[in-house]
């Protein structure tokens, strides 16, 4: 038997009895950041490949959601800060060892870029559109002239954004559930998948939808593969990580994780997409929404469960 207690008493808000310093706004941001990364990655990719005409939703229309997702995500991050008026301190330094510093700077670059990209297609959506400020006409011309360069920047920055949402957590060695290098790729793939699901939902073009369904199936496959490896890694690791894995293998997050994330968020939408590709009529909104909700729940669970896990001494 081993029993441990605080004889001096200790009940610090949000620290005891277990850590709960990050609430809803962090998982919501991680989801929206991943979603924006997915949208912008495929927009940039298919623009570089010259598929603007074949994949109009991917390259043009879906990107209108990216700036919105990023702005709401940034707002969530701001809400979470406890010393809010000092947020500008993030932009007085670059700290290469801090994932959060990377994230702050990538968001600083990719958010205006997403506005430029989406803004340059406003006139195609609404031909009578007139910019209020004459300067914006010049910006529009500039974006159209430098589209290839911007597309490359978008692809690179969106990969950094998508993978950083996972590395942000995995860099914390004090939280055994997060402390695995698989989390970066897993969050990236999950973010790309939610991006594809959103485009799929919006697209009216049959050929585009078929291609997007196939991409999403590959992404879901990679995600399942990474999740299995995640748990194999935990179970083969030290005591604290075995204990972290137990939260999902019989512990309090078991049902939430396996039912809502893995089955309803990955396996079931994948089956629906396969059936749809085989020609059975299924409203695309169903698999798309399931992927999105699954991705959101996944981030909530990871943030919540990760804070419970800790070193024992």
């Amino acid at each position, binding site marked *: 038997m081993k029993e441990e207690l605080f004889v001096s008493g200790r009940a610090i808000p*949000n620290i005891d009895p277990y850590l709960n*310093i990050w609430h809803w706004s962090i998982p919501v941001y991680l989801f929206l950041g991943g979603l924006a990364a997915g949208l912008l990655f495929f927009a940039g990719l298919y623009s570089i490949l010259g598929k603007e005409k074949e994949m109009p939703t991917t390259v043009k229309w879906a990107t209108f959601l990216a700036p919105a997702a990023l702005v709401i995500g940034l707002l969530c991050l701001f809400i979470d800060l406890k010393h809010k008026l000092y947020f500008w301190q993030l932009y007085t330094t670059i700290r290469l060892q801090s994932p*959060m510093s990377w994230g702050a700077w990538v968001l600083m670059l990719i958010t205006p870029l997403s506005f430029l990209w989406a803004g340059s297609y406003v006139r195609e959506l609404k031909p009578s559109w007139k910019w209020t400020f004459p300067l914006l006409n010049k910006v529009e011309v500039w974006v159209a002239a430098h589209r290839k360069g911007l597309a490359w920047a978008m692809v690179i920055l969106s990969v950094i954004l998508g993978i950083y949402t996972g590395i942000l957590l995995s860099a914390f060695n004090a939280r055994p559930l997060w402390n695995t290098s698989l989390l970066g790729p897993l969050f990236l793939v999950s973010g790309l998948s939610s991006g594809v699901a959103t485009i799929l939902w919006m697209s009216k073009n049959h050929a585009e939808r078929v291609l997007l369904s196939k991409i999403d199936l590959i992404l879901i496959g990679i995600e399942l593969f990474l999740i299995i490896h995640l748990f194999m890694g935990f179970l083969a690791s030290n005591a604290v990580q075995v204990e972290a894995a137990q939260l999902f293998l019989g512990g309090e997050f078991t049902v939430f994780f396996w039912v809502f994330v893995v089955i309803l968020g990955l396996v079931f939408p994948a089956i629906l997409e396969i059936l749809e590709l085989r020609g059975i009529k299924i409203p695309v909104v169903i698999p798309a929404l399931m992927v999105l909700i699954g991705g959101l729940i996944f981030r909530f669970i990871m943030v919540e469960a990760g804070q419970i896990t800790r070193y024992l001494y």
Partner: protein
Amino acid sequence: MRYGMAIDTRKCVGCSDCVVACQTENNVPIGYCRDWVVEVMAGTYPELEIEIRSERCNHCENSPCVRCCPTGASHLEQGGIVTVTHSECIGCGACIQSCPYDARYSHPDGYVDKCTFCLHRIQQGQGPACVAVCPTKCMYFGDLDDPNSEVSIALENRKFKVLAPEAGTRPQIYYLI
């Protein structure tokens, strides 16, 4: 110069004087604490063993809180003391997540707060408040690089351990066992 502390788990009676001294010295808000006392009971009756530890920030040499801070508010002071510059802290909570010892908390004013080894007292040539008040004199503070310091002598003559060495943080609080 490398500040460290040795705490004798065999002399400590768990009176929590160190906790109150710290709260008073550093104006710690009510309901919060920078140090705390843990009692670990192990074994089966009647073969019971008790260990009492006064715990606080370990001022780790390989400090994850300093690494993950996005603004540089968490930093190493002279002698390896980990402190937070309040006017640079944005209250993001990354350092709180990164600490294997849960030694940091979010101050009601917004910034992150923690043990400073009473840096303001050290600068005046005094030791930390917790060490100064300990009625059993179970805490030794000083320069680990100086072989004649109280802490170095204590570590030379006794067996000791650190908390969660597997976390790789190289903590600078040593528990004499």
